[in-house]
């Protein structure tokens, strides 16, 4: 695990991103707060629809507006609120100080531009370099992400590369300007498991080398365990638990986190173990949720849970839980 200095460089406070559709307001992110320190890897975990991707897009102000809108909250990068930045200021930030890699390497690269042109574009936008310097830096980046024969790859097109290689190109593009924060939105979900292992390995190496902080968005708890130092668990647009990675897996306190851990099929389980289900489904985000969003599916739900929305409470060692009846015993993992 890489070292973090503990100094927060990004502070998200009570972020609310809503989407105004014809059928109602979808509260994708509904009051989420967290911070990322220098060199730290923070994982945001949740299932589809929980708002984790929208959170990351909100940080870079990439929300399509209309229908989306960041209605409240602040996103402070080195103390300055990104939500107050002009479009030009945000463009300076994107790709340079904070960069992002996306889930689908197949469609995130422009099919009609060569690899060299695409990586070069990032460099040309943010750095004043000569053509030779740009080419040198591109080769350096390609070597850094372990692309074989970089000199010939520079002039190739995305369709000539495999999925794993395309994801490496994306990582190279994202790291081109030595960003302080790298946001990785489900970077390995679309990849085969052996390729995923390669990419995660690469990300760990690069993290140690460049000291960039990483915000890792994923639904895979195995990836979280391998990569993250701190974990934020989201459900229905809200943060339900936050802890360092060891505490989260050893003593999860929120019933949802516990349910998630128990319902996951694991390689180290006995083969015939029956999975523990979480009954019901994720609530529709279109209606306003009164009380705890997880209450209808929760076995520990009480009267209070259906009426009052739980508040985040620190249970020691920076382990935050939003629950009226948190699980206080050690989970059998």
């Amino acid at each position, binding site marked *: 695990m890489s070292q973090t200095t503990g100094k927060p460089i990004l502070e998200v406070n009570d972020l609310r991103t809503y*989407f105004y559709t014809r059928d109602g307001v979808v509260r994708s992110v509904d009051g989420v707060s967290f911070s990322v320190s220098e060199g730290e890897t923070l994982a945001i975990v949740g299932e589809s629809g929980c708002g984790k991707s929208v959170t990351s897009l909100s940080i870079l102000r990439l929300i399509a507006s209309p229908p989306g809108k960041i209605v409240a909250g602040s996103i402070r990068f080195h103390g300055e609120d990104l939500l107050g930045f002009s479009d030009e200021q945000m463009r300076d930030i994107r790709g340079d100080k904070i960069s992002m890699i996306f889930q689908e390497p197949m469609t995130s690269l422009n099919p009609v531009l060569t690899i060299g042109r695409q990586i070069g574009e990032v460099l040309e936008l943010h750095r004043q370099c000569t053509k030779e310097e740009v080419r040198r830096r591109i080769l350096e980046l390609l070597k850094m992400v372990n692309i074989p024969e970089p000199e010939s790859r520079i002039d190739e097109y995305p369709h000539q590369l495999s999925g794993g290689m395309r994801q490496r190109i994306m990582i190279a593009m994202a790291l081109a300007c030595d960003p302080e924060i790298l946001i990785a939105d489900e970077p390995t979900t679309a990849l085969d498991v052996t390729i995923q292992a390669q990419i995660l390995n690469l990300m760990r190496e690069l993290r140690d080398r460049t000291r960039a902080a990483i915000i890792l968005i994923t639904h895979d708890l195995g990836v979280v365990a391998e990569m993250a130092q701190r974990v934020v668990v989201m459900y229905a647009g809200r943060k339900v638990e936050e802890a360092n990675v060891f505490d989260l897996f050893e003593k999860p306190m929120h019933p949802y986190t516990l349910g998630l851990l128990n319902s996951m099929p694991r390689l180290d389980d006995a083969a015939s173990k029956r999975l523990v289900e979480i009954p019901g489904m994720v609530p529709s985000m279109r209606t306003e949720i009164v009380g705890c969003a997880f209450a209808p599916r929760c076995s520990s739900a009480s009267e209070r849970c259906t009426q009052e929305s739980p508040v985040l409470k620190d249970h020691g060692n920076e382990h935050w839980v939003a629950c009226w009846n948190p699980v206080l015993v050690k989970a059998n993992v």
Partner: protein
Amino acid sequence: MSMSIHSSLNSSDWSGRLFRVSHFFKDQLPALYKRYPFAVIGAATLILMGFIAIFAPYLATVDPQAVTPLNRLRPPSWQDWFGTDALGRDVYSRVMYGARVSLTVGIAVAFLSTVIGMSIGLITGFVRWLDPIVMRIMDGLMSIPSILLAIALMAVTKASIENVIIAITLAEVPRVVRLVRSLVLSLREQPYVEAAAASGTPLIKTLLRHILPNIAAPLLVQATYICASAMITEAILSFIGAGTPPNIPSWGNIMAESRSLFQIAGYLILFPSIFLSATVLAVNYLGDGLRDALDPRLSRRM
């Protein structure tokens, strides 16, 4: 095996039906209007035109064919609402009757070309060896401008509304075939069509149950555009004398006869063209609204 859904739909209870009708006008119509204002306006206009077409004999003030030379070229007044033409015929009555021709041609062409085009398209989508042959024929037809094609066909037959309909239909069919064929080709790859095959569904049932309902929406939208196009084509054909026979008033006809007089009696062209434009515009609005409403990508779910 059908499942009867709501028992109220099967009821022959008149009070129930009246309730639903008033419910429609009170609640659903305003909501529809809010969402698709132009489509609702278009639909209302079309209903009005249809009304005119059906009740033309009652709406017309005089016989549209009645020639009264003494009343030639009268401008619009309280007696002749739209004026009279060079033969003294009442323009207003002719325009009312003209609605019949335009709407008949428009709807008939839309219906026929859709049915014929759909049949051919379904066959070429599934019978692979027929595909190249049929498509080359369609490509050939499409490379001739539809107006010229219609004129050519009219030139070899006598002028009548039926022949106008057939001529325009022939010109519009290739486009429908192309649309249906591409839809069928993409639908064939859909997992649920594969699932139907795995369930043992024979080909004909697959066509009826799985393919047809899923091409109905784009076809319907296309049909509205064909209707608009056909109405204009009929007007053009009549304008150049290759369309509806001159004794039957059509909006194109009326304009054709007064072609040379438009500088002194502009109203002769003005009224039929207003009606034609309004109808075509209404059909286009309706088509756009249908397309927006039926397009699954614009569906509510996020």
